[in-house]
């Protein structure tokens, strides 16, 4: 067990959660909750893997993954924005739909080897003592793209005009509409962007960070964790990134706990009774719940939280 390995592994697997969570933040800021992240991720992972396998290009695979997630999200957008359907039920069915499509179209992909997006070392930054070796050396290219996405998305949401429109639509759609913002258009756009990022997260699994196609075990519930992360992050990309990386490190730490015979000078119970590992595997999920309890308590204290119109369909001309 080494700190360096845990940190680096957390950065890698955290990137997957980061993409999906930032996508969901953008969607939710527009007032649309999309619980179908898991389905979009799985479809993205399948599309990316299959395309990379067929074309020999991992970058085309990445594009296919992004497109698949985005296209699937449009079903949710249509049903919730135009048909004003319940967003929770629609999101759940999106997960079923995405999972089903991914399994049907992904038949026979298991065990194949697709070309992968490679690792890279950043020339100058990697020379920084210790930090450079951890953050900027021999990590997957997508991890660095994740680094860039964090400040960009924060800046976009908080400092730009389209970002302000986005938040206005999620907080008070009727007021935004009266200012000439196209509420439906904005909601479609960010549902689609959220879907694209979920697709990217899926692709990041299957052709980059933990490559391969293992049917629905490929994502194994990470989409749901991303949704939880959004609440924990209070719709702030910086907090989402921190949460994603921490979660990744935690998972690795749990895994590494099983290795040594001695733990802090004591007999390691997880080494001697391997079945206790099941309790370790529970911990990420338990901690997510604890983080939510803690997060919702602090959210109440600080008076911040969900966009005011989250989950509420907007109908032009009705009292909003």
């Amino acid at each position, binding site marked *: 067990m080494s700190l360096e390995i845990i940190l680096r592994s957390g950065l890698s697997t955290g990137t997957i959660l980061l993409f999906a969570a930032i996508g969901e933040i953008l969607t939710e800021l527009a007032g649309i909750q999309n*619980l179908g992240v898991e*389905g979009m991720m799985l479809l993205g992972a399948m599309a990316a893997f299959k395309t990379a396998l067929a074309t020999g290009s991992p970058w085309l695979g990445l594009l296919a993954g992004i497109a698949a997630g985005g296209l699937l999200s449009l*079903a949710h957008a*249509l*049903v919730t924005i*135009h*048909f*004003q*359907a*319940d967003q*929770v*039920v*629609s999101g*759940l*069915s*999106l*997960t*079923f*739909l*995405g*999972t*089903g*499509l*991914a*399994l*049907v*179209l*992904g*038949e026979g992909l298991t065990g194949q080897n697709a070309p992968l997006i490679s690792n890279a070392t950043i020339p100058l930054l990697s020379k920084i003592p210790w930090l450079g070796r951890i953050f900027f050396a021999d990590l997957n290219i997508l991890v660095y793209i994740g680094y860039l996405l964090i400040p960009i998305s924060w800046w976009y949401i908080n400092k730009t005009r389209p970002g302000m429109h986005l938040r206005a639509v999620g907080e008070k759609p009727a007021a935004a509409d009266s200012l000439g913002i196209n509420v439906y258009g904005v909601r479609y756009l960010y549902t689609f962007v959220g879907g694209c990022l979920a697709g990217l997260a899926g692709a990041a699994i299957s052709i980059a960070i933990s490559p391969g196609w293992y*049917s629905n075990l490929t994502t194994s*519930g990470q989409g*749901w964790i991303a*949704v*939880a992360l959004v*609440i924990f992050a209070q719709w702030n990309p910086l907090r989402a990134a921190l949460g994603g990386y921490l979660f990744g490190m935690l998972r690795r730490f749990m895994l590494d706990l099983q290795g040594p015979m001695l733990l802090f000078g004591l007999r390691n119970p997880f080494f001697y*009774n391997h*079945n*206790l590992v*099941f*309790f370790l*595997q*529970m911990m990420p*999920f*338990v901690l*997510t*719940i604890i983080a*939510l*309890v803690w997060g*919702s*308590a602090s959210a*109440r204290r600080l008076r911040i939280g969900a966009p005011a119109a989250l989950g509420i369909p907007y109908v032009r001309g009705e009292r909003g």
Partner: protein
Amino acid sequence: MSLPYHLRIQKRTEEVPRWLPLATSVGAIILAFLISALILLLIGGDPIRTFGYFFNAAFGSWGALSDVVVKATPLLLIGLGCGLAFRMRLWNIGAEGQFYIGAFFASLVPLVPLVDMETTPKFVILLMMALLGMLGGGLYGFIPGYLKAKFNVSEIISTLMLNYVAVFFNNYWIYSEFSDAGFQMTPVFAKSAWLPRLADYAQEVRAFSGITLHLGVVFGLIAAFIIWIIMSRSRWGYEINLIGDNPQAARYAGINITRNVILVFMLSGALAGLAGMSEVSGVVHRLQERISTNYGFSGVIVAWLAKLNPFATILVSFLFGALIVAGREIQPSGLYFFIQGTILFLVISSDVLLRYKIELVRTAPEEAK
């Protein structure tokens, strides 16, 4: 654009025709099968043969039909529980976890064993198992209910996370304490812990031989009746409906929302726990991995398709039981999820027809310029 006709979408002001909700649901299901057929065609399958096979696998014989009812039983119990929670706009996506914990609690009776399995009367054992199953599921439903009521933690996320926790918890016991000689399952329960099946009476009635239908389905039917009584004939049901429709009004009326959120979540969990008991005691006869094939999530869909009506839940769970039975026979295996997702999508989309009137009207000449 100057088309001679255009669509006019108007909010319905008059009463929705009584046949319309049923018609849209049936239409959505038919359309879902057509879309799935299209997908099958696109990937080079033969939809007609697949669906013929599908139908045969579900309804082709008494044995198949009994399998359908057996699969429908947990869906019915879970669907009833989820429907109850949805009435209060609570999203219990955690039936899967409550199912596992219920199955675990019920299995304690024959596995520990809590009573002498030889001498105790069978109905006492089964009653204990059913009660413990409901207790386990109810306690596991208490957690998200309490977190929702006290800390306003999103029940969607907490129930989802608890699903994973329950599966790992279950795995721990079947891999260690209760493992059958190191296999990833417990030993088979003593016969006295088995719910009676029709096949048990094959000696008296020849036709019952090999029919796996078990008593669990009766639990489901009784539960449907009880839920109906609660929701439409009791003061508690009135409170639940009021909280669901207008929480503000309910609060002014002095209804204790915190208590009701927790209670409804516990009852919802108890029904899922009973489903878990019915499955281990009626079908699997041991505790093992994957005793649920996504019953928790399918139950959510069943509840929604049934428009939260207990009797409609019976019908819809039967349909989904058929989907499961046929689904495990056909390839590719993901088709089953896909059909489920499509049905649900189309049903929620078709709800727009209930709220709006969509007409094709001739465009007036002065508008068309």
